[in-house]
């Protein structure tokens, strides 16, 4: 994509006015996506993302410039623009490039470029057929497929020269059940840092059936009640609670400014002692994994909270610089159009001691969130919210009638303390969430075992 002499000239130019460190991120990404609505393949699009981001540090601040012109002329223009924004300081020096070969932990068996779009259409149709066969009440389906092949080259003034390829495959399944003027939706997905082999041992028809079942169940459900009560969160995508409630607040971007409830609390008790939470960017084939992060640092398994005690934040190079800590390999960006910052990879709460059945049996009255939708958080205050896609009431230690339209809200630091039971059925979601924040939208996975929060606000209409 670029030769060494050019890279050298660009980095030197970028630091010439007082920058201490400079980095190039060159990206070429190919993507394909197909959408089938009601069993008819309606959309098929392909696109290439191509460009370069140049970042220069001066003090604890950063200048970022990007463009699509990756010729020497174009890159020197970026360097000029970046250098022009820096007025003083001691220019960093350039170390000789020492190319590193990345060990690939995510073997791809069937490359997206070898996938036939007809095979994709067959897959999407399996989900549609199974959903509509499940019940006559299933009136619409919308199923989608997406693959991404991202090639990156990261070069910096410390002599780093590293290339990596990230391949992602995703399928999303949605079924709508209708009865008169009422409609309810069931959604699920399957995603991984894998090629088309993702679908080799997975029955996509089962996804169609399950989303149909969820939609039909919710169609017959009454509205959820409102108020405070014990809440049981199911495993897998239930982990969205930790992602929203705490994960974002542990990101260096917020912590380094003190704009987080967890700032200055390393080594302190921040959660119930049955809570251990981990962010692991190394899990082979997982949706949020990477060989190296977007600064070229190898990803790691970071224990964030151990037995309730805060052990680590999620840090990128710049936040680490501000805080006097090393990067945790957590620096990410959607594309070259975003300055990278600390983000999550695959975040989960570790398995506990109870069986999943014990958690329900110990709950006299409460709300059981079987499937969660998305959510959001304001890291400064810790206030989070997330939607429940499929929920039930718990009565007398048993899962009772379905309840729809619930939203759960709370404050992250409070909810962590209120987790009073953790089961042993940990699993990652693999549904394929995209996490949006300052550096754009990036694939992240999440997970947890079934767990109970002693008290949470359930927002409902009854």
């Amino acid at each position, binding site marked *: 994509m670029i030769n060494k002499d050019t890279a050298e000239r660009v980095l030197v130019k970028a630091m010439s006015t007082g920058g201490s460190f400079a980095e190039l991120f060159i990206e070429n990404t190919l993507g394909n996506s197909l959408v089938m609505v009601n069993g008819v393949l309606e959309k098929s699009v392909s696109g290439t993302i191509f460009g370069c981001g140049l970042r220069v540090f001066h003090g604890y601040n950063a200048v970022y410039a990007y463009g699509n012109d990756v010729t020497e002329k174009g890159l020197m223009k970026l360097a000029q623009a970046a250098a022009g924004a820096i007025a003083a300081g001691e220019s960093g020096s350039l170390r000789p490039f020492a190319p590193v070969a990345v060990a690939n932990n995510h073997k791809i068996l069937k490359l997206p470029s070898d996938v036939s779009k007809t095979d994709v259409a067959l897959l999407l149709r399996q989900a549609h057929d199974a959903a509509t066969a499940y019940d006559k009440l299933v009136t619409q389906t919308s199923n989608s497929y997406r693959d991404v092949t991202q090639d990156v080259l990261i070069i910096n003034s410390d002599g780093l020269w590293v290339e990596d390829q990230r391949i992602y495959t995703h399928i999303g399944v949605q079924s709508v059940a209708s009865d008169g003027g009422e409609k309810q939706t069931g959604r699920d997905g399957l995603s991984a840092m894998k090629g088309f082999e993702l679908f080799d041992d997975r029955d996509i028809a089962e996804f169609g059936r399950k989303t149909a079942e969820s939609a039909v169940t919710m169609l017959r459900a009454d509205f959820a009640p409102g108020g405070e009560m014990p809440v049981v969160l199911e495993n897998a995508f239930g982990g969205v609670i930790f992602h929203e409630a705490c994960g974002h607040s542990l990101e260096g971007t917020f912590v380094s400014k003190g704009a987080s409830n967890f700032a200055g609390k390393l080594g302190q008790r921040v959660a119930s002692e049955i809570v251990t939470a981990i962010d692991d960017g190394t899990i082979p084939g997982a949706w949020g994994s990477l060989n190296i992060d977007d600064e070229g640092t190898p990803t790691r398994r970071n224990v964030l909270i151990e037995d309730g005690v805060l052990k680590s934040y999620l840090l990128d190079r710049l936040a680490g610089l501000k805080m006097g800590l090393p990067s945790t390999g957590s620096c990410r960006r959607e594309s070259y159009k975003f300055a990278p910052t600390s983000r999550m990879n695959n975040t989960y709460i570790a398995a506990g001691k109870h069986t999943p059945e014990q958690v329900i049996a110990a709950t006299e009255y409460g709300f059981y969130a079987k499937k969660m939708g998305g959510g959001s958080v304001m890291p400064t205050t810790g206030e989070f919210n*997330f939607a429940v896609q499929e929920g039930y009431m718990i009565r007398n230690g048993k899962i009772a009638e379905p309840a729809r339209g619930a939203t759960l809200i709370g404050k992250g630091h409070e909810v962590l303390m209120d987790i009073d039971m953790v089961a042993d059925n940990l699993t990652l979601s693999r549904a394929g969430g995209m996490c949006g924040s300052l550096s754009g939208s990036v694939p992240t996975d999440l997970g947890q075992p079934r767990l109970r929060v002693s008290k949470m606000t359930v927002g409902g209409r009854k």
Partner: protein
Amino acid sequence: MNIQDFKSLLFEKARGAGFDSFEMYAPSTDSFQVKVFGGEIEEFKSAHSSGVSFRGTYGGKMGYASTEKVAEDSIEYLLDAARANAAVIEDKDTEPLYAGDAEYPVVNSFNEKLSAAETSEKCALAKHLETAALEYDKRVVSVDLAVMGTFEGEIVIANSLGLDVSHRSNGAFAVAMVRVQSEGGEPKVGFESWAGSDLESFSPDNVARTAVEKGLAQLGASKAATANTEVVFNNETAADIFASFASNFFAEDVQKGFSLLGGKLGQKIASDVLTLRDDGYIDGCVGSKPFDSEGVAAKNKAVIENGVLKTFLYNLKSAEKDGVDSTGNGFKRGLTGPITTGCGLFAVQPSRVSFDQILDMAGDGILITKLEGLHAGVNAVTGDFSLSAGGFEIIGGKIGSPVDQMVVSGNFYEMIRDIVQVGSDLRFDTPSGDGTFGSPSVYAGKLNISGV
């Protein structure tokens, strides 16, 4: 490579490759953004990006491909990928291209003076924004975001039917997010944004003051009580609600059964006081455009007039299916997205009733000033919403104590029938990718509030 040269070459090769009709959609953008923290420029961003999206009919089906590498060697990829994509399409409805309109509205959305503004001036404004917020009140702990930015872009759409349109626009924006805290209390966040077409109309002091006051007003908030009560949305949150359900008015969604408005044209679906318009252009309004993503001239129209559903929002394909004209709502998301439907300036129309009068009418209830989780807590298909909210008690027609940690729940279709009154304080949100949304404050009637 120059875009006109690229177009000639692309069109020549597309013809040779057997496409019956084809189109090039080419946006280019220059953007600038500066973020200030602690009196220093924490982040400085400068960017230029451009790209080309190609679509063409091959064997009667439309295929798409796009690239950000505008160079001769990308043409083969564009044509091959578009052909492969066309080959799998099963949709029987054709996606037409457009030859263009005889006339387009004149939309002046390029300000030369803004374009020529010095970087140093923009940096100074961002620094001013931070300082003004910090100095406004001693309970301001930190200004976590003080951002000022500008952008300018050009869009070119040309096709084999003769369409050849282009439009230049630019604008500026600013964002302030402050953290306020009183001694021993919980921190609260105040947020305010501004968008405009010239720097003269940007007052860092006003934006800073509004952000701080929003935060301060929430200090000491208590949890709301669970109740079915009178709810007023302020203008910002009312616009959020209508934006979340805008897709229910897309003909495309109606035709596919993803909206409950099918068969309701000409019928009363909302309260008499509700008039909702989607305008393609309004004089002086940021977000105005002369044409949509298919090159169809922008149109101004009422969607709901005094409660009656007047039209759906159409692109060329959904219009052809219903045998009507496009309403100029063809929309393409980014460079890669296929043509779908989007909004123009989509807004609830104001009345003459002031915000204070609306509070008076509501008597006792809840005023909502903040909504979170709009991407998750809304079911666009059913109209159900259940959203994390913050705001104030309304007591005896006046604003009372702040409340937070509550969820407001209801159903959009029921809510628009129950709206008691809309206010006079129309405010447009900052333009987003798929439309610019606005509303005055809205007294929605009774909704469910969940808290303690």
